[in-house]
């Protein structure tokens, strides 16, 4: 059943639950900005003293920490591919608190880094100086005949140096979320696409259709970034196709289309209906949606890589066909949610350096791109590789996949103890690295392809992925 929700939620309390102090009529974009600048202008009384006390304590506890960085009030969040900016961070090294948004993904990201671990490199579980670990990692890497570079949770600079190392060692490269990302890539390679970006959605989307995704379940700030909480938003209808709407909705009319439970079948029907092609036993709700799409001035079809079903590339091709059909008479575009944790960034950097995207091997016959055969998990499971270099600078909690193959792991300091706890120390070298947007500056690609600069919220004196990989490159080059 179609369910039209014409009662917008309370204006002051928005998708992400930002509560505007100034009252119910204020939009959250403003509220977010206000909060951010309030953090900058007037800290509540008493906080400064606490901060100083905390700082002294931290400095006593952690000698490795070079400088106590000042509070960063204008922070860009690196923890999903929306790369939201304009928020504030409060607190210090051991408890960074987000102001201006209660995005659970940002909070989880910060919480994972809340109590920094003293960075410790180790070889097979034995603590060693960082340079010894680099030397040993380079020695092991040189022995592997077919390395896999996995994880790839890093920024532009990290991707640049990883590309060089991959070329030298003949590695195959795949991101931790490569499986989801490849669905979008394969649809693009086979059919192409017409896509749009956040500012365009914000300015002109009058119909937003979330296809098989609630969008804000994994990208909590998405609707706010689309401006749906603003009084001047052009959006007249928000549709959820094949999924129930999320519990908290932005203040625009919402429509749920349950569909058949088979997203591919629904998209096939929608593609036919939009093209006004014969469609037997059409779902009346889908027919209604097709009519609305044709009538809209600028419809945006939102999809999420991680939420696509098996053979999702086929579904995406249908989605792109719907967009293409609409564009013959009105305007429409797709918006893909995905590419978090460096996925979009590494994909872009590898594509420009080599001409080919991830899941490419730098082999003796030149470069081979195999979006199916070179899937990281598949290569590991089949022992088609003999060593794993795992790079994950995003958070300390996501560990490399369990494998009995030798590993070199680059991760935040907190990942080291977790690896030991998980019993993953055997045949493993661990090298601590900084997290872009947290304790290192950097650049990441947003889901829609825009490059966003990141600032360091604190300085932990840690090397970046680019630094560590550059050392490995030097050693590989010297050995060669």
């Amino acid at each position: 059943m179609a369910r039209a929700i014409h009662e917008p939620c309370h204006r002051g309390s928005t998708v992400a639950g930002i509560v505007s102090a100034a009252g119910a009529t204020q939009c959250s974009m403003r509220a977010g900005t206000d909060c951010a600048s309030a953090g900058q202008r007037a800290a509540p009384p008493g906080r400064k003293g606490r901060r100083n006390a905390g700082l002294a304590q931290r400095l006593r506890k952690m000698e490795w920490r070079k400088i106590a960085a000042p509070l960063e009030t204008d922070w860009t969040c690196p923890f999903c591919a929306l790369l939201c900016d304009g928020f504030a961070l409060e607190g210090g090294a051991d408890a960074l608190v987000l102001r201006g948004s209660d995005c659970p993904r940002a909070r989880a990201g910060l919480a994972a880094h809340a109590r920094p671990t003293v960075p410790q490199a180790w070889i097979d579980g034995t603590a060693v100086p960082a340079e010894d670990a680099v030397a040993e990692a380079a020695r092991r890497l040189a022995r592997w005949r077919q390395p896999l570079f996995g994880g790839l949770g890093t920024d532009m600079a990290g991707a640049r140096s990883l590309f060089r190392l991959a070329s030298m060692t003949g590695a195959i490269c795949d991101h931790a979320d490569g499986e989801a990302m490849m669905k979008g890539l394969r649809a693009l390679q086979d059919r192409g696409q017409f896509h749009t970006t956040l500012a365009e959605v914000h300015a002109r989307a009058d119909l937003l259709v979330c296809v098989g995704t609630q969008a804000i379940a994994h990208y909590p700030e998405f609707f706010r970034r689309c401006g749906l909480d603003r009084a001047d938003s052009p959006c007249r209808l928000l549709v959820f196709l094949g999924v129930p709407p999320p519990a908290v909705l932005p203040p625009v009319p919402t429509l749920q289309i349950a569909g058949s439970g088979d997203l591919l079948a629904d998209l096939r029907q929608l593609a036919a209906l939009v093209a006004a092609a014969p469609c037997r036993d059409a779902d009346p709700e889908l027919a209604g949606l097709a009519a609305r799409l044709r009538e809209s001035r600028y419809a945006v079809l939102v999809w999420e890589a991680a939420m696509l079903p098996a053979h999702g590339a086929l579904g995406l091709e249908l989605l792109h066909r719907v967009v293409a059909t609409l564009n013959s008479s009105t305007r429409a575009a797709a918006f893909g949610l995905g590419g978090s944790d460096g996925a979009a960034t590494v994909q872009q950097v590898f594509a420009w350096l080599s001409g080919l995207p991830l899941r490419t091997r730098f082999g003796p016959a030149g470069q081979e791109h195999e979006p199916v055969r070179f899937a990281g998990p598949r290569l590991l499971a089949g022992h088609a590789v003999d060593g794993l270099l795992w790079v994950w600078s995003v958070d300390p909690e996501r560990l490399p996949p369990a494998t009995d193959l030798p590993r070199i792991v680059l991760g935040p300091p907190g990942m080291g103890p977790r690896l030991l706890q998980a019993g993953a120390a055997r045949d493993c070298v661990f090298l601590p690295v900084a997290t872009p947007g947290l304790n290192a500056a950097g650049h990441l690609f947003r889901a829609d392809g825009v490059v966003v600069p990141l600032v360091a919220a604190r300085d932990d004196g840690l090397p970046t992925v680019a630094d560590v990989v550059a050392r490995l490159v030097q050693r590989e080059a010297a050995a060669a």
Partner: protein
Amino acid sequence: MTTRRLRGGRVFDPVNAIDGEVRDVVMRDGRIVAIDPRDAVDEEVDASGCIVLAGGIDLHSHIGGGKVNLARLLMPQEHGRRRTPAGDDPLALADCSHCTPGTLATGYRYAEMGYTSVFEPAMAASNARHAHMEMGDVPILDHGAYVMLGNDELFLELLSKGCEPQRLRDYVGWVVHATKALGVKVVNPAGISAFKFNQRKLDVDELHAHWQVSPRQVIGALARAVHELGLAHPLHIHASNLGVAGNIASTLATMEALEGLPGHLTHVQFHSYGTEGPRKFSSAALQLAEALDAHPNCTIDIGQVLFGQTVTASGDTMRQHANAGLASPRKWIGADIECDAGCGVVPFRYREQSYVNALQWCIGLELFLQVRDPWRVVLTTDHPNGAPFTSYPHLMRLLMDKPFRDEQLARLHPDVAAGSALRHMTRELSLYEIAIMTRAAPARLLGLHDRGHLGTGAAADVAVYREQGDAEAMFTRAAWLYKDSEPVVRDGRIVAAPVGATHFAEPVFDAGVAHFLDAYGDRRLGVHKRHAVIGHDELCACCNGGRLLPSACQARSL
């Protein structure tokens, strides 16, 4: 401080009016120096039997930025056809794609042909960082970019509200400053934006449905701003109606819209079509050449079409959408970008037996041969749109060798082969003219006073080729290429791959415009205003640590 002397080569240096004289060229510390011929040098290079030119300069080649990378993602099959074995070249981590090379291959292939500077003509302001990152990863070559304006909603809104020219000028200056651009380009003036409002065509005097401004107004306002800011490069114009039969009318109207101010019309081959003949598609090359005579304020580059597989990558969403049905293979990418720009990536296979493609090939060559003043014509294929840049040597031979040209013409669609004006054109470009079109003229058009020539004090970017009858073979492999006086190519092979430098302009403008931009807020800028300006340190990080080469601008009045 190594001093190198290239001895005994025939030098072609049009800036200094040297036309094939045998003379020595001496390099030291990155510069051309004058020393006594008897003075000892650290390295003597025997360049006898060679021609010596300044390093090549390509002022319009899509080498970096979002749409170029989308083209790479779209065309993975391009890589399967030729594989270079690893170890072939110790420096080459590069790929072997023909029309969508990676940045490494781009740098290596250009250098092998003796080029030392290449400029990305279509940088979206909202994603300038991406363009700088890719260009920074193009080894060897110096680079820079023109930022696209005239389809950003802010400019159109200002123009529609009758904003005074000084404020428009300050806004343009601020965008150049913020994005670290060398010049300003307009693509299908107001048309990319109009497509977002579902307009499918926009003639020079047609109004944008929403902003109620015409391309003529956009051209006039931008040309004035660029001129007043004192940017060396004239407004770079991708005119309205790309690829449309009969578009010579809008191209001529665009030249008129400049009202005498400098303008560079790019890839004019795609904008010089008439409607004569049985197929209502004809060459208007002569009309364009005549219009250039009448408009001394205008310069052009060609955007020559050559046959084979390529991919067209353009900011012109409106025209790329219209042409998407011709895609080969049948797939394409389009995008609306940040209330600022757009892009369309359409694979194309230009075929000798296609009447239209064959005529496009002729029109480009006719333009090269009919425009009398080589200083106003720059050799381009609009890489990769007309053809990949690697076909430049082939193009040079077509221009220099009438029998070779006739041989190629005979292979084309019979109606074109029989009816083309090209058959009767006997002109063969000289090495001197080629040196103008590939070195001296682009350097002058970009205001790069120390590039594109071999005079004392010039940057020591020097290309040496073994002289031979076959110009294609000659220009395919430089015998030596020196970048800032260091060898980077020897016998057509890369021997060093330094990071190139970034050229950008530093116009003077009223900084108060930034406050005024604040009023527009995030909604216009897409990213936080804190990130709106790329500072020198960030530019350096994006550009991979290459040198920054700012050029000062002298403000001008009308």
